[in-house]
């Protein structure tokens, strides 16, 4: 066979055809991680994700600081979603320290948590747009998230790293007239993101690039232990705000967005639908929130614990279920803090989805996993 083929077109053995590529860690299409892929022609035949380039040792650092001074550094893994990434730690610390949270603080937390979910998702959506070469979808979310960042700036004083949730409640109360401003901006925000359907989600180019790529079946989504939008895009109806409500989520009406397809398109659409649900939750919380009252149970600078204990708390973050396991030996510092982060859990699905895909589909599959490299590394 080979001797009758013209030079250059001769078939090679499989071993000689395979090429290994390092995607990352400096590649703009990988984030702060490396993906080692082996390709045969256009098709990915092996994939080995290599996280760890932004590992900061958050868990080790937490063992050296007390329950309050742990707050600012534990939000660093996802600064765009800093309220949600702190939420389970704060819930766990409250149980270990044995403190109650005022009712108004719980509503303030829900509002901040949902605002942060939208801020994170908009950033993620902007990058998803530019990954697919859709510049408008980079500019629009990057601009529209300013609406919500301004709101969080009014609440906490910081634009991204709020450090607003602390054991005992939230750091400070909502500013005067916040309800009206928040309602106005959230309503406008919701009107804006609905326009994304025309430019992005109904765009035939996006649909042709993402539909039926990287299909994750329902069985495999459960088997890999995925969470959040990845899980819900594969047809599993699971959202901790509904299934295991924390703080005041059981008093709010939360709708879970589920899609059955399990492809990149579904995974990119579910977070967008979740943002509209967040707007609904914020409006409900603003209405039901006690109009006045304390937002913080004051603690001493180096608070004492109730004694040795272990707690495991979970919240639904912008990427999925985020758990925090705290082991206390009765001292003022935690003995061990473990963050069970959704990006790390969803990472397991990545090699399984990429094998068999074309290399050109890698960005659309990879970023649809709602993966945040810094969070996975902690």
């Amino acid at each position, binding site marked *: 066979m080979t001797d009758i083929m013209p030079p250059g077109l001769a078939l090679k053995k499989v071993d000689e055809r395979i090429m290994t590529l390092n995607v990352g860690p400096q590649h703009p299409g990988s984030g702060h991680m490396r993906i080692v892929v082996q390709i045969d022609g256009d098709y990915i035949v092996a994939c080995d994700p290599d*996280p*760890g380039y932004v*590992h900061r*040792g958050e*868990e*080790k*650092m937490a063992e*050296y600081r007390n329950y309050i001074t742990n707050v600012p550094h534990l939000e660093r893994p996802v600064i765009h979603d800093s309220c949600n990434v702190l939420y389970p730690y704060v*819930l766990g610390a*409250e*149980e270990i320290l044995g403190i*109650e*949270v005022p009712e108004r603080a*719980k509503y303030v937390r829900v509002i901040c948590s949902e605002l942060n979910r939208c801020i994170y998702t908009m950033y993620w959506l902007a990058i998803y747009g530019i990954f697919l070469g859709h510049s408008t979808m980079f500019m629009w979310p990057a601009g529209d998230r300013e609406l919500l960042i301004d709101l969080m700036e009014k609440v906490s004083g910081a634009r991204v790293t709020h450090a607003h949730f602390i054991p005992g409640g939230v750091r400070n109360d909502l500013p005067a007239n916040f309800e009206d401003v928040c309602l106005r901006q959230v309503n406008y925000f919701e009107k804006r993101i609905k326009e994304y359907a025309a430019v992005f989600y109904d765009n035939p180019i996006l649909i042709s690039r993402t539909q039926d790529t990287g299909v994750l079946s329902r069985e495999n989504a*459960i*088997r*890999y*232990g995925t*969470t959040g939008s990845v*899980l819900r895009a594969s047809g*599993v109806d*699971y959202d901790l705000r509904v*299934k*295991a*409500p*924390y*703080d*005041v989520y*059981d*008093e709010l009406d939360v709708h879970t967005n589920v899609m059955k397809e399990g492809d990149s398109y579904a995974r990119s659409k579910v977070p967008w639908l979740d943002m509209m649900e967040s707007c609904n939750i914020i409006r409900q919380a603003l209405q039901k929130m006690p109009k006045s009252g304390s937002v913080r149970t004051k603690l001493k600078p180096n608070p004492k614990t109730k004694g040795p204990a*272990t*707690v*495991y*708390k*979970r919240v639904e973050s912008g990427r999925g*279920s985020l*758990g925090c*396991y705290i*082991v206390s030996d009765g001292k003022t510092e935690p*003995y*061990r803090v*473990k963050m*069970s982060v959704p990006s*790390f*859990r969803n*990472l*397991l699905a990545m090699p399984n989805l990429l094998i068999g895909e074309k290399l050109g589909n890698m960005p659309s599959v990879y970023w649809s996993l709602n993966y945040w490299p810094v969070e996975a*590394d902690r």
Partner: protein
Amino acid sequence: MSSDSEKPVVEAKPEEKPTPAKPTAKPEEKPVELPAFEKGISDKLVEKFGDKVEVDFVKDDRVGIKTSKENVHDVAQFIRDDLHYDHAESVTGVDYPADNEIEVVYHLGSYTESSLARQVLTLSTRAPRESNPIPGQDSTKLPSLRDIFYSVEFGEREVFEMLGVYFDGHPDNRRLLLPEDWADLPPLRKDFAIKGR
């Protein structure tokens, strides 16, 4: 209204008062009213395995089970097949130099069984600890649960590099987060100290 913060201890205390005779040392571990559903889960495990498992705690939405490293594989198999937990949320290693042991904690949950949606089962087991570890080649070993819960794959890799616990039967015991040339102690062990602290 955080469900975990209202421990049954508070309600239970007034009713418990007539019988304070025997459990004086640990009254908070024997509340009168354990949450019924969670108690049912731990009872099933005790019924099946007897004294091979130890119930660590039973509280709202959380059940804690301890077992030895010889039995952890069988217990995990039972948890998946008969109790219908289908995935692991996290794998945590905790170093206990005072006991000369390293604890590995699996947090298990269920997506398929709707009654378990709120529940997290904590399965913990302990491996012997060596003061001069050679990760992978010393006695700090545990059976891998990857053949039962596929989702522990990266979690066990992380525990291996961060605490030096080798998982027998794991298909891919490589470094995950640490650099390839890391030659110090596993960093989450208590004797690995941050410089200057």
